[in-house]
C-alpha cells in the first residue's frame, strides 16, 4: 500500500457538519479493507477530536495519513487553546456548556477516550493560538 493523505476543514460551532470528516475517513478505511477493530479506534478518536474542535476550539483541520505500517491522524485548530493539558486529560474534566451537554457531549471523556484508543497521542496547545492533537495507530494487520 502506498501512502495516502486526506485533509478536511472543520468549522468551529458547526454542529450540523461535525463528524463528517470522521465518517468519510471511516468509509475510506473500510474500502481499503483495514482491520475493522482498528477502523473503529481511528473513527472514535477522529470523532471525539472533531467534536472538541467544534465545541471548544476554533476553525481547524483534520488530516489523516495512511501508510503500510502506521496511520497518523492530525487534528488542529486555531481556537482558544488548552491552558492546562494535564487537567484537560483527566477523566470527567470538562468546560462544556449546558448546550453541549444537551447534545450528549461534555462528559469530559473525549480526550481520555482518544488516549485509550490511539497507540500514541501527543497534544500541543498554546492558549490564545490553538491546539494540535496527533494520534498514531500501528497498522499491524498488513
Amino acid at each position, binding site marked *: 500500500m502506498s501512502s495516502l493523505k486526506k485533509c478536511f476543514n472543520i468549522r468551529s460551532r458547526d*454542529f*450540523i457538519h*461535525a*463528524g463528517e470528516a*470522521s*465518517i468519510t475517513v*471511516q468509509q475510506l478505511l473500510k474500502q481499503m479493507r483495514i482491520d475493522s477493530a482498528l477502523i*473503529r479506534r481511528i*473513527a*472514535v478518536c*477522529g*470523532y*471525539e477530536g472533531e*467534536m472538541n474542535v467544534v465545541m471548544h476550539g476554533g476553525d481547524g483541520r483534520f488530516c489523516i495519513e495512511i501508510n503500510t505500517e502506521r496511520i497518523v491522524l492530525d487534528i488542529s485548530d486555531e481556537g482558544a487553546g488548552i491552558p492546562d493539558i494535564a487537567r484537560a486529560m483527566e477523566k470527567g474534566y470538562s468546560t462544556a456548556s449546558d448546550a453541549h451537554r444537551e*447534545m*450528549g*457531549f461534555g*462528559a*469530559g*471523556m*473525549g480526550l481520555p*477516550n482518544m488516549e*485509550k484508543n490511539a497507540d500514541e497521542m501527543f497534544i500541543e496547545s498554546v492558549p490564545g493560538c490553538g491546539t494540535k492533537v496527533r494520534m498514531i495507530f500501528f497498522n499491524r494487520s498488513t
Partner: protein
Amino acid sequence: MKLSLVAEILEATFLCGEDRPDIEIDKAGGSDLMSDVLAALSDHSVLLTGLTNIQAVKTAVISGVAVIVFVRDKKPSPDIVALAEKHGIPLLSTPCSMFLACGRLYNAGLTGLKGTR
C-alpha cells in the same frame, strides 16, 4: 434476537429500516452520553437513548451501533432519519421509558455491551 422481536417487546414503531426486521441483536446499552457510547463495546448493539439530535446518529455510525431506539416516544426530525437511513441504521421509537425499555430487553435475554447479564 431479531430486530422485529425487539420492536414487538418495546411496542416500538420503525422510523426507518423496517425493511430489515431480520437484523440479529444480542446486546444493548442505554445512554444519553455520547462519549460513553463511543468508549463502550457498542458495535452491533441496540442503543437506547433519549437524545434525538444528529450527533446521536453520527455517534452510532462511528461506533458501529446497529440500531437506535428512542425512548419515551421521542422522534428525531426527518433529516436525521434520512441520515440514519443513508448509513443503514434502523431507528425505532418506543413509548417505554429508558428504565422500562432496558428492563424488557434484559428480561427477554439481551446482554449488556460486555456480554454479561
